[in-house]
C-alpha cells in the first residue's frame, strides 16, 4: 500500500454564506413574525374582552382584594379625592361603574384605572397637583379609560406580552431586547387611548367647572421638569409626551369653544 500525502480542498465543511446575511434575514424575519403575532393576539384579546359587558366587569371586580396592593387605607386625602371623582362621574350618568379611589405610597406621580372601577392614585401625584382643576383633569383622564374600557384592554395586552416574553425567553435566545421592544410596542399602542382619555377628561372638567382654565397646568409643570428628574419617569412611561397632550387639549378646547379664563379652585387635601 502506498501513501500519497494530499490535503482536501479547504472550506468544504464550512458554509460560505456571510454570517451577517444570515443575521439580517433572521432578525428581520423573526421580528416581523413576532410583531404580527403580537398585533394579531392583542386584536383578538381586545375583541374577546370587549364582549364582556361593563356591568359584568364591575360585578366581578367590585370586590378587589386590596391586600396585595399597598394602599393607604386611612389616609385623610382619600375622601376629598373620592368626592371629586364622584362629582366628575355625575357628568357621565350612564357609567356602569361605582368608582373607588385608593391612595398608594410612592413619590412618582401616577394614577391607574383598574378593572371594576378602582382608581389608584399615588401620593406623589397628590403632592404635585396644585389646584382641584389639575387633579380633576387627571381623574377625568382615568374615567376616560373606563369609558373606553382601556383598563380591560390593557389587561389583555399585558397578558399577551407576559406569555409572549415567557415563550421567547424559554428558548435559548434570552434576549432582553424582546422585553424592550415589547414594552415600546404596548406603549405606542396606548398613545391613541391616552389621547381619547385626555379628551374625555377635559370634557368632564368643562362640565364640572364651566371652564378649562388651569386644567393642564400640571402637565406643563411635568414638561418643564422632564429633564433628568426620574420621579416623573414613571408617569411618562405609561403616558404620552406632555407637550403633545397639552397641544391636543388646547386644540380641543378651542374647537369646542370652552373658555380658557376662569379661576382655578384651590385644592384642600389637608397636610400629611
Amino acid at each position, binding site marked *: 500500500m502506498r*501513501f500519497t*500525502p494530499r490535503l482536501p480542498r479547504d472550506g468544504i465543511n464550512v458554509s460560505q454564506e456571510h*454570517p451577517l446575511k*444570515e443575521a439580517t434575514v*433572521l432578525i428581520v424575519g423573526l421580528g416581523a413574525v413576532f410583531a404580527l403575532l403580537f398585533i394579531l393576539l392583542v386584536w383578538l384579546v381586545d375583541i374577546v374582552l370587549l364582549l364582556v359587558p361593563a356591568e359584568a366587569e364591575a360585578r366581578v371586580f367590585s370586590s378587589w382584594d386590596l391586600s396585595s396592593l399597598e394602599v393607604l387605607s386611612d389616609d385623610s386625602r382619600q375622601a376629598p379625592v373620592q368626592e371629586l371623582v364622584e362629582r366628575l362621574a355625575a357628568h357621565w350618568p350612564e357609567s356602569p361603574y361605582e368608582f373607588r379611589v385608593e391612595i398608594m405610597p410612592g413619590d412618582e406621580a401616577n394614577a391607574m384605572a383598574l378593572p371594576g372601577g378602582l382608581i389608584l392614585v399615588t401620593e406623589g401625584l397628590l403632592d404635585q397637583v396644585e389646584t382641584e382643576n389639575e387633579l380633576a383633569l387627571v381623574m377625568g383622564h382615568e374615567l376616560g379609560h373606563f369609558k373606553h374600557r382601556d383598563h380591560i384592554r390593557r389587561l389583555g395586552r399585558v397578558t399577551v406580552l407576559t406569555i409572549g416574553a415567557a415563550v421567547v425567553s424559554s428558548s435559548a*435566545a434570552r434576549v432582553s431586547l424582546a422585553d424592550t421592544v415589547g*414594552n415600546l410596542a404596548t406603549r405606542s399602542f396606548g398613545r391613541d387611548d391616552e389621547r381619547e382619555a385626555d379628551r374625555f377628561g377635559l370634557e368632564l372638567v368643562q362640565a364640572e367647572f364651566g371652564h378649562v382654565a388651569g386644567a393642564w397646568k400640571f402637565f406643563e409643570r411635568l414638561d418643564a421638569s422632564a*429633564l433628568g428628574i*426620574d420621579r416623573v*419617569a414613571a408617569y411618562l412611561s405609561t403616558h404620552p409626551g406632555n407637550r403633545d397632550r397639552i397641544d391636543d387639549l388646547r386644540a380641543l378646547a378651542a374647537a369646542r369653544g370652552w373658555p380658557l379664563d376662569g379661576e382655578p379652585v384651590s385644592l384642600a387635601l389637608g397636610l400629611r
Partner: protein
Amino acid sequence: MSPESIEVLISLLFPLVLLIGTYLIGTLLERRHFTDLRAREEHFRGFPAITFENLPAGWEATSSDVVQGSVVVSLDYFKRFIAALRALVGGRVKSYEPLLDRARREANLRMIEDATSRGFHAVINVRLETSRMASARGDGKGTAGIEILAYGTAIRLASPPS
C-alpha cells in the same frame, strides 16, 4: 431627552455594541485560526494519521503508544445570538460549522504534534470525539464549551518514510 428614553436607548445600544464588537473580534480570530490551521496541515501533510485499525500492509512497527490532542472551544456572542435565533426557526445552524471544523482540525493537529514530538512516524486508528461541557449555571447562559478529543495509536516504523 427624557430619562426614560435614555434608559431605553442604553438597553438597546449595549447589546448592539456587544454584538458588533464580538462579531468583529470573533471573525478576526476565526480567520487567523483558519490560516494557521492550513499552514500546520501543510507542514504535517506527509505524516500519516489515518483511521485504519491495523497497520497498512507492508508496514512494520517497532513500538507504539497512544497519542492525543484536545481543545475546548466556544462560539462568540454574535454567533451564539444567531444560533439562538436559528434555533427558533430550525434549519442549518451555519454559525456552528466553522467552530466545529476549527476545533476538530486543531485537536487532530495537536495529536499529530504529540506524535511527532515523541518521534513517532504515523498514527493509526484515529478517533475524534465531541462532548459538551455543562454550563456552570445550568440555565443556558453560563459558559459552556465544546470539547473535541482526537486520539489514536502512534507507530514507530522499522523503516521510516523519508
